[in-house]
């Protein structure tokens, strides 16, 4: 692992300007991705994971807009803001233009795998044709060479008889096969970084396991870095090297995967881990996180997780914790945004505990949703 990160994200802020108000979907997140590693972004639905992923390649759609922060890829400013003469934030002149993004970054350096393999392929063109087109654009090779690369790549991702399947249409492929095609597409363009936005969420678990295994194998072979966006801690454990836990637009904890699982420093991460079913333990009931995530239009004051946090104290509702290094001397970097850690000195220990507003009767407390709605809402996506 080289010392200079491949991708540096600093204080990235993306907002959606809707009629109801400004949605702070991604609210000042920072993380690094190093060469050859798989960085995870994990969190509930609506935490801003996908928007964060789209912001990195500047593909946020209307009415969303990146309003602040920096994203450097191999030192190139993908996103860079500075204050202009009026004191307003504006993109710098050095920031890559849309044309430069399209020509030099998208596909060529950073490729994306979307969540829904059923919708990601164009139904009226052959699978091979689509692969070939993207390879031609991003690798500057001729048509026949691009076709050869495409066929090789299809074989590489485990599609049987790639020569004949090359000419078939997306509807002739199963969901798992289509996701393999999309992985082939990403790898065939030989990018340095692949952003996988919940690529296995739409697949059933057996296919998911196969895809994860495939990605692990190919990642080792090609040395490509990944950003793996998921809501599934199990997936994180399986393939990620480092993890960024997102909650309501913020990164609340980031650490190496082992550290995160064995020594989590944020109650939200603990709660996510506690909610996982484990094969080695028989439990009567799963242990869900109480309540639902509030909306990002009006996030709670102080720590955004405090209304659902079993360990919230009065101070948590008042002061907003930043994400700081909480590792002890000699340990690997481990950042968390929770006052429980000694790195913070805001008087957490003296502060009186908060009554949890998100108890079993949270229907009256948080959003006014009924239990059933909240549950189904939590499971969706």
């Amino acid at each position, binding site marked *: 692992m080289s010392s200079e990160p491949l991708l540096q994200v600093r204080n990235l802020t993306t907002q959606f300007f809707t009629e109801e108000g400004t949605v702070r979907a991604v609210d000042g997140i920072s993380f690094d991705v190093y060469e050859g590693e798989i960085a995870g972004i994990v969190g509930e639905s609506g935490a801003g994971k996908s928007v964060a992923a789209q912001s990195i*390649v500047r*593909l946020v*759609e209307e009415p969303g807009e990146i309003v602040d922060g920096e994203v450097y890829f191999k030192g190139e400013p993908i996103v860079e803001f500075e204050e202009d003469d009026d004191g307003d934030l504006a993109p710098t002149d050095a920031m890559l233009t849309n044309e430069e993004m*399209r*020509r030099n*970054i*998208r*596909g*060529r350096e950073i*490729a*994306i795998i*979307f969540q*829904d393999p059923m*919708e*990601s*392929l*164009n*139904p*009226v*063109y052959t699978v091979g044709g689509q692969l070939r*087109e*993207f390879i031609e*654009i*991003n690798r500057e090779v001729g048509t026949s060479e691009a076709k050869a690369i495409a066929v090789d790549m299809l074989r590489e991702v485990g599609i049987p008889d790639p020569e004949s399947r090359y000419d078939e*249409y997306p*509807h*002739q492929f199963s969901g798992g096969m289509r996701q393999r095609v*999309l992985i082939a*597409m990403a790898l065939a*363009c030989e990018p340095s970084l692949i952003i996988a936005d919940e690529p296995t969420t739409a697949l059933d678990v057996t296919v998911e396991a196969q895809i994860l295994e495939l990605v692990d194998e190919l990642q080792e072979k090609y040395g490509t870095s990944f950003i793996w966006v998921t809501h599934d801690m199990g997936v994180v454990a399986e393939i990620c090297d480092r993890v960024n836990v997102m909650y309501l637009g913020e990164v609340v904890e980031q650490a190496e995967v082992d550290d995160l699982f064995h020594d989590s420093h944020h109650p939200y991460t603990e709660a996510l881990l506690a909610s996982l079913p484990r094969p080695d333990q028989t439990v009567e009931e799963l242990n869900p996180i109480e309540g639902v995530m509030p909306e990002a239009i009006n996030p709670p004051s102080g720590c955004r997780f405090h209304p659902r946090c079993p360990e919230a104290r009065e101070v948590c509702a008042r002061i907003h914790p930043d994400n700081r290094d909480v590792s002890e001397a000699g340990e690997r970097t481990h950042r968390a945004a929770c006052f429980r850690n000694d790195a913070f000195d805001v008087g957490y220990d003296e502060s009186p505990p908060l009554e949890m507003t998100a108890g079993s009767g949270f229907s009256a407390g948080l959003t006014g949703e009924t239990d059933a709605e909240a549950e189904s809402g939590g499971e969706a996506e």
Partner: protein
Amino acid sequence: MGIGRYTIRRILQTIPVLVGIVTITFFLTDAIPGDPVQIMLGPSPSARDIELVRAKYGLDKPLWVRYINYLADVSPIWLWPKATFPFVELQTGVDLGKSIYYSVPVTQKIMERLPVTLLLVASAFVFAIVTAIPLGVLSAKRRNKPTDHVARVVSLIGVSTPSFWIGLMLIIVFAYHLDVLPATGLILPWANPAEVSGAENRIHILMLSFIHLIMPTITLGTLQMAAITRIERSSMLENLSEEYVRLARAYGVRERTILRKHAFRPAQLPIITIIGLNLTAALGGSVLTEVVFNINGMGRLIITAINNQDYPLVMGTTIYYGMVFVIGVIVTDISYAYIDPRVSYGEAEA
């Protein structure tokens, strides 16, 4: 299943449809109140005249015999029973009978009027498609910008204005006040120069034909143009927000290529449906446009046939219309299969 087999299957499926059309039209025509013979012979004809005319057109036979005879006549192939070996007699060819009103074969009458309608409809649809598709795409591309608003207002006016009114207005302005375009008639571009007044050679004919076509084309084509523009716009918008368009963007495909290729082709399915159906309907005769511009096309032929209770002509024109409709639907379906591979292959998969 390949596109060839798909086509053949669709064509075979039309046989029962056509038989159905012939049957229903035959009995419905017969059920129309009134009597063509009486219309033909005028008030108080002699009983002998009536009988003669009836016998001449085969109207004296029982209904079911006339039906079987008619079916045999219009079928390209028919087998009559025969007393001697091989016990059947082959009858080939299509015969739609003879018009009572015009006293010429129905086929001849249709062949005379059909080119006029074909020319008019082709011209109107070429005008509509050539203007509407770019307009719709542009409208979608510049969504909620001035171009889009203008295009939407124009197409809204287009779909809500009756075509005959547009025709009359065009005549008043361009034929009556400005006197730059002819108000009536149509000259076929393949007409003989010797038979057209004011024309000496082919160039003249083509120019005359073009000038005569302008107003009817706009009259008939405006509605189509407006309808196609609206659907093109919404279909393009829908496709531009599809995941595969986002994927193409994420792989650095040019916005122009996305518009022309990735979003455009899947967006054409609803366009094909509407063009297919409207074109088919227009081929049955654009009665209003033909009446306003005094053009002798299929539409006016059908009206004449019905007004005079000309049984063979009503039957003939209806069968023609049914044929056109069936062919139109097949062509639409096949173009669908051509554009969207899921149609021809995907019977098992949705």
